[in-house]
C-alpha cells in the first residue's frame, strides 16, 4: 500500500511530539532513512510542507509572511507577533520576513489567504486611482 505525504508528515509529527532536541534529531535521522528506503526523498519538500501544517495546527501556530522595507526585529517584531496572536487567537507565530523596498514603507501581512496591506506603495496606488477618477 502506498503511503501518502500527509501520512508521512503525520507519523513524523507523532514521533517527535514531547521529545527532547537530541531525541528529535535521532527521530528525524531515522525518518529520512525510511524515506530513502521507500524511495520517497524526492517528495521530502511536500512532506515538510504537510508536516508544518499539521504541526502548526496541533500547536496552534499560524504562518505569517510579512513584507517590509527593512528587516523587522526587536520590540516591533514582538509587537507584530502579539497583534497577530490576538487577532487569530493562536499561541504562536511562524514568521517569514520578506524585505522589499518597493513597498516604500509600512508592512504587508499575509496570514493564510488573508492579506493586510498597510504599505505606502498601496496608498500611493490608491492615490493614483483617486486622482484618475
Amino acid at each position, binding site marked *: 500500500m502506498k503511503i501518502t505525504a500527509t501520512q508521512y508528515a503525520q507519523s513524523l509529527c507523532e514521533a517527535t511530539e514531547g521529545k527532547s532536541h537530541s531525541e528529535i534529531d535521532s527521530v528525524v535521522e531515522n525518518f529520512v532513512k525510511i524515506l530513502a528506503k521507500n524511495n520517497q526523498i524526492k517528495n521530502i519538500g511536500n512532506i515538510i510542507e504537510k508536516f508544518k501544517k499539521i504541526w502548526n495546527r496541533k500547536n496552534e501556530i499560524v504562518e505569517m509572511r510579512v513584507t517590509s522595507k527593512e528587516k523587522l526585529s526587536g520590540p516591533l517584531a514582538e*509587537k*507584530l507577533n502579539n497583534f497577530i496572536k490576538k487577532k487569530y487567537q493562536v499561541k504562536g507565530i511562524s514568521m517569514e520576513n520578506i524585505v522589499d523596498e518597493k513597498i516604500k*514603507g*509600512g508592512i504587508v501581512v499575509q496570514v493564510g489567504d488573508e492579506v493586510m496591506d498597510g504599505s505606502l506603495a498601496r496608498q500611493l496606488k490608491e*492615490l*493614483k486611482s483617486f*486622482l484618475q477618477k
Partner: protein
Amino acid sequence: MENLIGTFHIDYKILIAQLINFTIVLFVLYKFAYNPFLKIMTARTGKIEKGLKDAEEARKKLEETETKEKEILNQAKKEAQIILESAEKMAVKSKEEIMENAKKKSEEILSAAKKQLEEERKKMVGEVKAEIAGLVVAATGKIIDEKMDDKKDREIIEKIIG
C-alpha cells in the same frame, strides 16, 4: 236648257263619245301610268322617309356620340385631375419624406459627432488625469523615498498594528 245647249252647240253623242274616250283614257292612265307612278312615288317616298329617318338617326347618333364624347372628355378630365392631385400629393409627401429623412440623417450625424466629441473629450481628460496622477504619484514616491527613514517606517508600522 234647250237654249243653253243650243247656244253652246252641245252634241249629246259627241259628249258621250268624249266621255267614253275620257273614261278609256282615264282607265289607261290609271292602269299604265298612275299605278307605276304611284309605286315609284311610294318607293321614292319610302326612300326619302328612310333617308330622313336615317338622317335623324345619324343626327341622334351624332348627338349621342357628341354627348358620349363630352362625357368621356369630362371623365378623362376628372381622372386627369385626380391623377394630378394624387401626383401633387405624392410629390408633397415624398418631399416631406425627403425632408424628414434629411433632418433625421443630419440629427444622426450631429448626434454621432457630439458623441465622438464627448468620447474624445473624456479620453483626453482621462489621459490628462492619468498623466497628472502619474506625475503626482511619482513625485510623492520620490519624496517618500527621500524622507522615509527607519524611525518613520517604524512609526507607520506601529500605527498599523497599534
